[in-house]
């Protein structure tokens, strides 16, 4: 499996505070890699760094052959980021929002239309795409944003709490969509508090706490290592 993302010795400092204290991980082609940890562990900071939103204090982050410090624009062309608390422009219609976002990635109108068509399928919102985003429910907005993140078939999709605020049915649908795209070759770096979701989605997970990766591996290998029935127990044992 070829490596899409390689993170080595990554550190992030805010003044005196070190939020990420030197972490290493890789994400392979078509792999779903998850970061799990408590609040303030450094998951979102790591995702935001890979998404080019925050700068690297120390260490390297490489997407294929591109280094984040020197080529952030190459990253942006190949990734897509779904923040935990994301929104869409309320004055735009759902379809117009997708067209707007597609125009940044497509070279031709035909390509842009291809992205929008795919996004329409992912959302499953049908005629509601002709309505303004301001009229959507939280679940509808989340699906719209997930479709926006996946429609361009990025090399790496960075998903922060992808099912945040969704009900059970919508969450299941979203997980299926993520799984399907990963099977089609899209690499996914995600974070979630939902251990069931992580176990269902992830090929590999990293347990992160206080800016450090405590352990990593496949959900199965971690459960065996910590002699645990589920990832929640693994996580608790790793923290001790």
């Amino acid at each position, binding site marked *: 499996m070829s490596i899409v993302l390689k993170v080595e010795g990554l550190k992030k400092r805010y003044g005196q*505070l070190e939020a990420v204290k030197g972490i290493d991980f890789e994400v392979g082609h078509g792999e779903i890699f998850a970061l799990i940890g408590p609040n303030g562990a450094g998951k979102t900071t790591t995702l935001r760094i890979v998404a*080019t*939103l925050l700068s690297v204090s120390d260490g390297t982050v490489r997407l294929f052959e591109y280094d984040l410090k020197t080529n952030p*624009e190459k990253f942006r062309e190949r990734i897509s980021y779904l*923040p935990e608390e994301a929104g869409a422009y*309320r004055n735009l219609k759902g379809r117009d929002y997708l067209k707007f*976002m597609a125009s940044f990635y497509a070279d031709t109108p035909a390509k842009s239309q291809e992205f929008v068509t795919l996004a329409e399928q992912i959302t499953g919102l049908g005629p509601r795409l002709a309505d303004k985003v301001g009229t959507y429910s939280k679940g509808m907005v989340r699906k719209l944003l997930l479709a*926006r993140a996946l429609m361009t078939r990025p090399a790496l999709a960075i998903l922060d709490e992808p099912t945040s605020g969704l009900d059970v049915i919508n969450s299941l649908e979203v997980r299926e969509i993520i799984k399907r795209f990963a099977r089609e070759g899209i690499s996914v770096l995600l974070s979630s508090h939902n251990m069931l979701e992580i176990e269902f989605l992830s090929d590999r997970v990293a347990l992160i706490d206080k800016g450090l990766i405590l352990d990593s591996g496949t959900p199965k290998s971690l459960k065996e290592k910590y002699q645990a029935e589920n990832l929640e127990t693994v996580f608790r044992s790793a923290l001790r």
Partner: protein
Amino acid sequence: MKKFMTLLVKEIRELITKQLVVSLVLMMALFYFIGTITRSEAQRAAGKQKISVYDLDRSPLSGQLVGGLETMNFQVAKVQAADTAAAVSEAKNSETNVLLVIPQGFGDAVSRSASMNVETYTFLRNFSVMGARTSGLLRAVVSAINNVLSDNVLKEKIPGADPQSLKNPIKTKDFIVIKSRMAEGSAALIAGFVSSQSMLIPVILMMIIIYSSQMVISAIAMEKQNKTLETLLTVPISRASIVAAKMLAAGLAGLLSAAIYMLGFRNYMSGLTGDIASAPGVSQVVQKLGLALDAKALVLLGVSLFFAILCALAMATILGVLAEDFRSAQSLIMPMVFLVMIPYFITLFTDVKSLSLPVKVLVLAIPFSHPFLATQNIFLENYGAVWFGILYMAVLFTVLVVIAARIFSSDKVLTMKLRWGKKKKTVF
């Protein structure tokens, strides 16, 4: 370029909403309405003035007085009443604002060169600018009476002499000199005209700066509040393009708003100042003194205004980053308002050249001072000062844009926050 245009169109659509268009159209209609009323009032005030006269004397001299008033731009309405109270009542119900009561024995007293009281009644029907003209009308009536009477006495006592020459043996010829230009005219009238004309520019500038700044700050704050900024910052478009699209869209929206306000305000102001412009000889004197803004002057003024707007947009972009949400954005507009108000009031009430050096430096360091001063500098042929202002604003704009672009290219765009009364915290 295509990506930039897409972003620009989105920003414009976000800013120029139906609500904004409706409010601008309503404002335009309001200014037009007020302007039309004030213009018609001003025209009425400048036309033949109606006064009521209650002549109790009915002597040949009082008849001459009424005739004299009629030759002096007054339309006299004679009141027939039983007594003064009834005359006041009748005049009050008519269209006239002044009643002149000529008492019995008036003609006899004047022929004896004795002083005689005439009564005047002024009906104040409102306290507006136009309404205040009534008191001016009263003074004009009394002056006209004195003129008529003294002329008659002088004609009678010194036959063949010109009463005007006798009363005013010294005549003045007023000249106004501005730099190398000179013209004959009243300095007070010309100064009033120029001040009324150039008053429009600071008001428009103030509106554009405040509008545009508010739009930029709000646009960035709304991106943060609606949680769309993070997504936007990860799309493949340069951060400089994001900043430029926001600034350009706000600038265009601010210009549109200001242009509509300007048209409306100009209509309103022409209603108030139209009579000054139409005063005899004013336009010729203004032309001769070069106090009218010709095409070159307008271009120079436009360039000065343009750079002031650019500086405002760049400052607002930096301030916008500090906003957490739409509400905090409203308080962040205050520094911009102060920066506009300080030079506005200083240029309105004093001459910047007369200020002490530190204060002068401080005022000139505010970029918005330069377009405020540009009009009078153009009138006074101080083109060097105008160009210095433009150059200063261009340099300042470049510095501010570099700072704004750096902020947008760094973590600060997400981590910089202004928290009133709270310790700054970093969330990760």
